[in-house]
């Protein structure tokens, strides 16, 4: 039997056909099963807020403890904003790549200038 962590990579085409709540439901269902989800196109700020709110409503002591999330944004979009300072180019991104996983398995998720680093472990 194979042991490891399942990584679901969701294309922007698939995400574009889904409503915000469908995306959030899919992400949380996957993460609660112990999968790591990689979105080719990140969530909008509004969707991120809803994801955070939904995550909080599903945390249960002794069970699901929440998510780790990190974004590698694109450099397209309007000028200004935090990401322009972080990644240069003077543009605010729409969000290009987003990694989300269960906090008890995605031990460390960090962003450097042009890469995301994830350390994952299989469920206990």
């Amino acid at each position: 039997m194979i042991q490891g962590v399942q990584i679901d990579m969701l294309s922007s085409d698939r995400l574009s056909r889904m409503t915000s709540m469908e995306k959030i439901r899919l992400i949380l269902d996957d993460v609660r099963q112990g999968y790591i989800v990689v979105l080719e196109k990140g969530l909008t700020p509004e969707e991120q807020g809803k994801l955070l709110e939904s995550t909080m409503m599903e945390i249960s002591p002794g069970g699901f403890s929440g998510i780790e999330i990190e974004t590698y944004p694109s450099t397209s979009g309007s000028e200004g904003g935090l990401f322009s300072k972080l990644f240069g180019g003077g543009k605010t991104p729409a969000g290009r790549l987003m990694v989300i996983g269960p906090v008890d398995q995605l031990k460390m998720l960090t962003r450097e200038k042009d890469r995301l680093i994830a350390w994952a472990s299989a469920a206990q």
Partner: protein
Amino acid sequence: MAVMMRIKGFFSKLFGKKRSRVGIYGPPNAGKTTLANRIVRDVTGEAIGPVSEVPHETRRARRKEGVEINSGGSKLLIDIVDTPGVTTKIDYHEFLEYGMDQDEAVARAREATEGVAEAMHWLREDIDGVIYVLDSTQDPFMHVNIMMIGIIESRKLPVIIVANKIDLPDAAPQRIRSAFPQHPVVMVSGLEGNNMDDLYGKISEVFR
């Protein structure tokens, strides 16, 4: 929607500006309640809520209405809403390290998750402006901060970033200023009361 906004604007001008609800947001243990207490005490002599070193001491948003901010001869009336620390994860085991028994830690975790969900909902529905509080001794580039500032920007809410805890030896408030160049950053110590006049001046300017 645009018509409703125009009507709202017309009545605001006619009957005076509505009182702004200013939410104090930020990650856990950034000093949000200490700062809220400082602001409310300076104005009313009361406190808004208890503080402690245990994360998620504030688990329900607390509101103080009609706080009058005086700065540079101008007055501004705001409602202060102190919110639980925003995070993407809450594990009750964390609270056991502070000497709580399991039942107490589990109850605290449940209350904290409900409080954060409520605070996020309010950010969408009920808040007119944000004071985003960061601990100057911590890395400001954490994803939760980036995400929250993104949400605040997308909602076009006026925001002041507070670089708090400048009284601590490890404080590096300039790091926060360089992380958020597009927003006003005020460096304060909510605990010691340093630079509070600068903050009141900025509140009067940004939330008017």
